[in-house]
């Protein structure tokens, strides 16, 4: 079997494995659901993420040790990941092949030609790593603060900002598959979720994904050659690779058939650009004289081992990267209403870790986690934000799925005990995402004197964080004069008694003249008479002409901030769907103690 066929089988295998992991990232107990499948494996193989986290935070979350394997293999073999493993690269290659399958060799040569703009990805890599590396300054400032407190200002301004996720091909592909393709496919299959799945910004994520794929019809592997910072990192790491593609002798017929089929556009016919080579191995078979091999010796025609970057280009991208965090933090604080998933770190630490892979949004059983558009500011674009009114429920009390799946620890892995504040965590209390506030201008019992309290019923904590205030409010047109009465029935002028529209169970009647003015529940309401609860009769029947008032008995919700954990179940069940009458804001969230408002 040709080596290129082995490569294709390998690529298809990893693409299917990737899609399988996306599919099984579903909460449940079936064999095809999340129960030990290493669904983060591709993200963990990623040295770009690992490097970004080490630079930005000084630590490597568990699981990302897998990146060491990729690094070691790349150092030995070169960019094998790009040509053999990367599922995004496989798609690019397939579409590029489709676009060129009828083209002449000359046309193919032109499309696969090296272009100087391919160096752009190295500048992007520099920019992204520089943005993360600002975290080093933070820690240095922490040390320097011992010398002078002035350094505290630097510490506040210059925490690392992990922006790699936006161009990282694995996070890119996870976002597209998890937040766009699977929800779209499931409209037909209805196998993954109980109803249609939504994600804010899905159009943008899907549009970028489609654009990245379709552009291969013009230039094959466009993303890999020009944009991919991970590919650039591999190019650097593979600089001293032990095995490399190259010519066995310098002289050849110069037919350029090897370059007509070159995925990396690395010019194998001349001085090969080793850092661009994705090890597709096509040239091994396209050379009619069998002059190209994958060997320990360098190409006989010579190599260009390093990308030809200019010093000013590197300086510019470094500087731009260093300024990402300080500039975006000068722009202003994030939207103060931003609610992060439970267990999220403090905002600064969160942004130094989140790669916007969307795994938390994918796994959330109630669809409340969405990619941030503007909520988390420019810097937090695409990071997870909890939107209770967009999902199918609040944050489920006994669910810790998003905290367990986060591959980078931007969301700390919570145990159920920690989330609920039980066991060894009893002293800390439950993890709070915010506090619910009743909008008395919209809440039915507050604003319109109509019964409701769905929020109180659904509040999942014990004792409930929503308490009830019982009141009697006058009913419109409810001031009447009694014609005659006995102990249980009042008679009125038929034309004056309003027709019963509300549930009579919530209607009460009070005699305004006389000593006994306690409201009685109305159990019967016909054309001209009202019957009251037979268990609670009037001691003495009201006299003729006595004033009677119809009242609505209302239960009005009031939030107890000491109990509220900000789970948003109340917000999600509020019947006022256009704008909920009870809404959660991150006040008093656990991760940010100064947000508390309680003394």
């Amino acid at each position, binding site marked *: 079997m040709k080596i290129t066929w082995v490569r294709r089988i390998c690529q298809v295998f990893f693409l299917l494995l990737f899609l399988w992991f996306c599919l099984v990232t579903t*909460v*449940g*107990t079936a064999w095809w659901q999340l129960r030990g499948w290493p669904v983060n494996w591709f993200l963990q193989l990623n040295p770009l993420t690992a490097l970004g986290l080490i630079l930005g935070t000084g630590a490597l979350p568990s699981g990302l040790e897998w990146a060491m394997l990729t690094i070691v293999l790349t150092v030995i073999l070169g960019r094998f990941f790009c040509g053999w493993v990367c599922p995004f690269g496989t798609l690019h290659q397939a579409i590029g092949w489709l676009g060129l399958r009828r083209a002449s060799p000359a046309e193919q040569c032109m499309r696969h030609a090296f272009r100087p703009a391919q160096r752009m990805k190295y500048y992007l890599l520099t920019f992204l790593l520089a943005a993360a590396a600002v975290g080093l300054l933070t820690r240095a400032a922490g040390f320097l603060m011992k010398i002078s407190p002035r350094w505290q200002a630097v510490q506040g301004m210059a925490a690392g900002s992990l922006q790699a996720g936006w161009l990282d091909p694995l996070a890119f592909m996870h976002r597209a598959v998890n937040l766009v393709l699977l929800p779209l496919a499931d409209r037909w299959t*209805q196998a993954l979720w*109980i*109803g*249609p799945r939504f994600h804010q910004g899905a159009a943008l994520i899907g549009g970028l994904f489609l654009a990245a794929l379709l552009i291969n019809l013009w230039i094959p592997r466009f993303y890999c050659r020009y944009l991919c910072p991970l590919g650039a990192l591999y190019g650097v790491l593979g600089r001293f690779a032990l095995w490399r593609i190259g010519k066995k002798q310098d002289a050849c017929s110069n037919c350029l058939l090897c370059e007509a089929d070159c995925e990396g556009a690395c010019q194998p016919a001349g001085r090969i650009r080793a850092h661009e080579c994705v090890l597709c191995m096509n040239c091994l078979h396209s050379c009619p004289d069998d002059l190209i091999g994958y060997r320990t010796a360098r190409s006989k025609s010579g190599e260009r081992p390093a990308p030809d970057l200019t010093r000013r280009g590197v300086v510019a991208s470094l500087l731009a990267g260093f300024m990402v965090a300080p500039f975006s933090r000068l722009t202003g604080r994030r939207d103060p209403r931003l609610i992060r998933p439970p267990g999220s770190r403090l905002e600064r630490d969160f942004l130094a870790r989140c790669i916007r892979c969307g795994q938390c949004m994918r796994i959330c*059983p*109630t669809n409340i986690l969405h990619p941030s558009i503007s909520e988390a500011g420019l810097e937090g674009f695409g990071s997870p934000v909890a939107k209770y009114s967009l999902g*199918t*429920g609040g944050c*489920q*009390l*006994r*669910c810790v799925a998003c905290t367990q799946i986060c591959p980078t620890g931007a969301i700390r892995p919570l145990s159920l005990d920690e989330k609920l504040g039980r066991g060894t965590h009893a002293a800390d209390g439950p993890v709070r995402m915010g506090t619910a506030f009743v909008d008395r201008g919209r809440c*039915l019992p507050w604003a319109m004197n*109509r*019964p*409701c*309290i*769905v929020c*109180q*019923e*659904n*509040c*999942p*904590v*014990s*004792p*409930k964080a929503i308490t*009830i205030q019982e009141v009697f409010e006058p009913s419109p047109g409810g001031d009447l004069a009694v014609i005659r009465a006995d102990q249980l029935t009042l008679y009125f002028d038929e034309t004056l008694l309003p027709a019963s529209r*509300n*549930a*009579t*169970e919530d209607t009460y009647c009070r005699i305004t003249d006389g000593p006994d003015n306690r409201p009685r529940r109305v*159990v019967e309401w016909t054309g001209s008479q009202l019957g009251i*609860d*037979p*268990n609670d009769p009037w001691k003495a029947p009201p006299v003729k002409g006595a004033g009677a008032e119809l009242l609505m008995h209302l*239960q009005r919700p009031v939030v107890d901030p000491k109990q509220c954990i900000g789970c948003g179940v109340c917000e999600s*069940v*509020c*019947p006022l*769907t256009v704008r909920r009458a009870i809404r959660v804001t991150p006040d008093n969230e656990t991760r940010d103690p100064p947000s508390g408002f309680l003394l």
Partner: protein
Amino acid sequence: MSARPMDPQRRDFLARGLKAAAAIAVTGAVGHGLGWKTARDHKDEPGEWRLPDFSKPGIEPRLGIVTGPDRIRNLQKAMDALGGWSSYVGPGDRVLLKVNAAFASPPSIGATTHPDLVAETIAQCFRAGASRVVVTDNPIHEPAACFEWSGIGAAARATGADVWVPRDRDFKPVTLRGGRLIRRWPALHAPFEGINRLIGLAPVKDHYRSGASLTLKNWYGLLGGKRSVFHQDIHTLIAELAQLVRATLVILDGTSAMIRNGPTGGSLSDLKATHTMIVSTDPVAADAFGVTLLGRKASDLPHLARAAAAGAGTASYEMLNPIRIQAGPS
């Protein structure tokens, strides 16, 4: 006149004219056809669904009340007193169990139907000859999590019943004839496919808005859509549900009752050991007695009087000569 070769410009014009005419004709035909179809479709009534009457004909309304700490023993005693399972489930019957799996909370919290009760009911249905038992509910929390946390899913699988976790496509609009609220409202439909017996299994729970959540309130879980709007008039809704759903049997589990902080609970201190099992063919009577376990009166649940007035049962449960048994500990 001699035949002249046609002016090429004229020929081209005629050809274009023909194509234009064809395009106009096709546009007109499609537009007319679609317009006609839409107009016709507008008259069509989309398929509604009528919930069948599952009550077993020829059975007098019965009520069995068994006191004792053992849930399963209580149920066995109550069913024996009511003529045995075979009076309600026969060979080849397809039984739907409407449990309360509203919340993703463990059985100890008491917010959901106890899995032991579900397992025993399923086993007895199969022993009486049922060919199929389906367990369903449209919960408030994330459905799959509710069935797992409540233990109902595991209990059903262990005893050979099917768990039906509802999806969007499983709902169809229903209308209660003469009803005011249940009009073209989405209700669970798919799990009822081929079913001929319906058994309601509900725990006894405090419920602030309706007074108590018992067997009638349990039917709320058959509704879909934005059902929270019904809380504005919850008693009318429950009374309508009582008319809409005619079950073969209801089982009200008061072994422990959630006396406060309902219907979610969340703490063991919300529960009280009331040691009672209620089985009835009349859900109104079952609830009228069941609410007393919470220290409340039947008149505190106005929907009971309304349901009774609409012919769904009797709130004066003593009229049914309830069979009372002291089961004691097992």
